[in-house]
């Protein structure tokens, strides 16, 4: 069959379908209705509840010291974890994508483990490793370094749950780009660093940014794993997510929703940037 006739017939197909448009519209209505119930109404509700009593009360919550400390800690954790996992992700993606070896699917599965391990179990692992009766506690006590119920524990737990994102986004891009340009650069006398900086990095930049974006969203929003290791001491180990839960538990719904607006805005910004990056890379993946 020539390609011309296939495009022709698929256009006749869509006209034959639009002869019965009601079935289409019913399906579209069901899809949108379901998304509204499960995703859209809850998302709109965050902003509605935060602003229901007016902008003034909404803004006063940001003047509270606990909220400001929570914002600071959330930014601090992301500031440490995102670069750490970006560098690791680049190394891991390079190691996995650029070297043919037999156990590749197994290594990728291991890398994916943090996606399937419950965040609470991840937090529990950190307690068992760094906690008071943990394996590393003799060393930690010797150097007088507190991990669990302190900021280092939050950093470690967040690094655990966000570990795969960058590598997972960069591996397919590296594989797709191939090694031709890198080898050309090498024959022209470029050293490893020059090859990486001038050839590889520009090729993978959108995939890398996408991975960094996902890492950052998860790092700033992580709750389960952080909740286990933080001990939730206000003004010391309370991230924004923990602040939301704590305020809600204490019936300070206004404060909870005000903090949620910040995290919700982070989510929306992530979605928008994600759309832009997806258009840059011409792809649509989860």
């Amino acid at each position, binding site marked *: 069959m020539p390609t011309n006739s296939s495009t022709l017939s698929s256009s006749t197909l869509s006209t034959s379908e639009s002869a019965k448009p009601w079935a289409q519209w019913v399906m579209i209505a069901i899809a949108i209705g379901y998304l509204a119930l499960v995703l859209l109404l809850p998302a709109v509700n965050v902003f509605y509840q935060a602003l229901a009593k007016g902008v003034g009360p909404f803004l006063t919550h940001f003047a509270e010291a606990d909220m400001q400390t929570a914002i600071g800690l959330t930014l601090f954790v992301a500031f440490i974890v995102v670069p750490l996992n970006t560098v690791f992700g680049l190394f891991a993606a390079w190691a996995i994508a*650029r070297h043919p070896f037999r156990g590749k699917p197994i290594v990728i599965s291991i890398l994916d483990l943090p996606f399937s391990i419950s965040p609470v179990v*991840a937090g*529990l692992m950190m*307690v068992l490793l760094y906690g008071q009766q943990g394996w590393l506690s003799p060393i930690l006590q010797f150097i007088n370094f507190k991990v669990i119920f302190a900021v280092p524990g939050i950093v470690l737990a967040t690094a655990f749950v966000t570990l795969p994102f960058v590598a997972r986004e960069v591996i397919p891009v590296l594989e797709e780009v191939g090694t031709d340009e890198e080898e050309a650069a090498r024959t022209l006398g470029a050293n490893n*660093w020059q090859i990486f900086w001038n050839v590889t990095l520009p090729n993978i930049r959108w995939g890398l940014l996408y991975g960094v974006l996902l890492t950052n969203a998860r790092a700033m929003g992580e709750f389960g794993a952080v909740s286990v290791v933080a001990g939730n001491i206000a003004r010391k180990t309370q991230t924004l997510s923990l602040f939301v839960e704590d305020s*809600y538990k204490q019936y300070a719904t206004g404060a909870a929703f005000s903090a949620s607006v910040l995290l919700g805005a982070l989510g929306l910004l992530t979605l928008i940037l994600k759309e832009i990056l997806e258009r840059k890379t011409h792809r649509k993946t989860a």
Partner: protein
Amino acid sequence: MAIAPSLSWRQPLGYLGKISLPWRVTIGYLAWMLVLPIVALFGKAITAQPSEFWRIATSPIALSAYEVTFVTALGSALVNGLFGTLIAWVLVRYSFPGKRLIDAIVDLPFALPTAVAGLTLATVYSPKGWIGGLLAPFGVKIAFTRVGVAIAMLFISLPFVVRTVQPVLSEMERELEEAAWSLGASKIQTFLRVTLPPLLPAILTGVALGFSRAVGEYGSTVMIASNTPFKDLIAPVLIFQQLEQYNIVGATVIGTVLLLISFVLLLLINLLQAWGRRYAN
């Protein structure tokens, strides 16, 4: 920072003897961040006597928590298998105003922190909330019941099905469906016999990914549930409560059970993806 040359032309033994820097960083970081914590969990779990392990792992409260977790997660994942496929279908096959926006919104559960999801779902589905308020006069309670847990699980597992089905559906050759129609098959026959079989691995992969995520979910579920044992207490919350009571062994045992189940699910997902690739080729 040195980047190793592509080693494809070298003898495999050559690079086993001389591990490159990227591999050293990868192995080192994975060993410290990922393997060591998992070993610590198993190490702690085997310090419990096997009989003690079994007693805690199968205690009535744990069994009830598994039941609530797995049955609710499976139900939610299956419901999303249906609606997720429908949403993917609508997004790929039909055009309508606002389609791009709807497409972007599907990813919301990946981007919205789970504590916020839990807070807003608990509010919307509470007896005073937008949706809960409509159902309250009929005596239907959602927030602080097991149905609420299911709603939170629906929220977090929805994108998985849509995003695994969508690419398969958009690459599908529509000529096959036309051929079936021209041979006299009805629309339903065409869907069941021609369209659905190649989609099935993707749908099941999405359901398994969603199920796996829902089983481990903590943030959104802990806030919409009342966390009452034997009623709507899920396994991750049980682990958390055990830790709060300084019952490290109890938390470790149930955590190990959950971890082993995640391993099994990961294996299942890999098998489903391999099955899907066979269809693609």
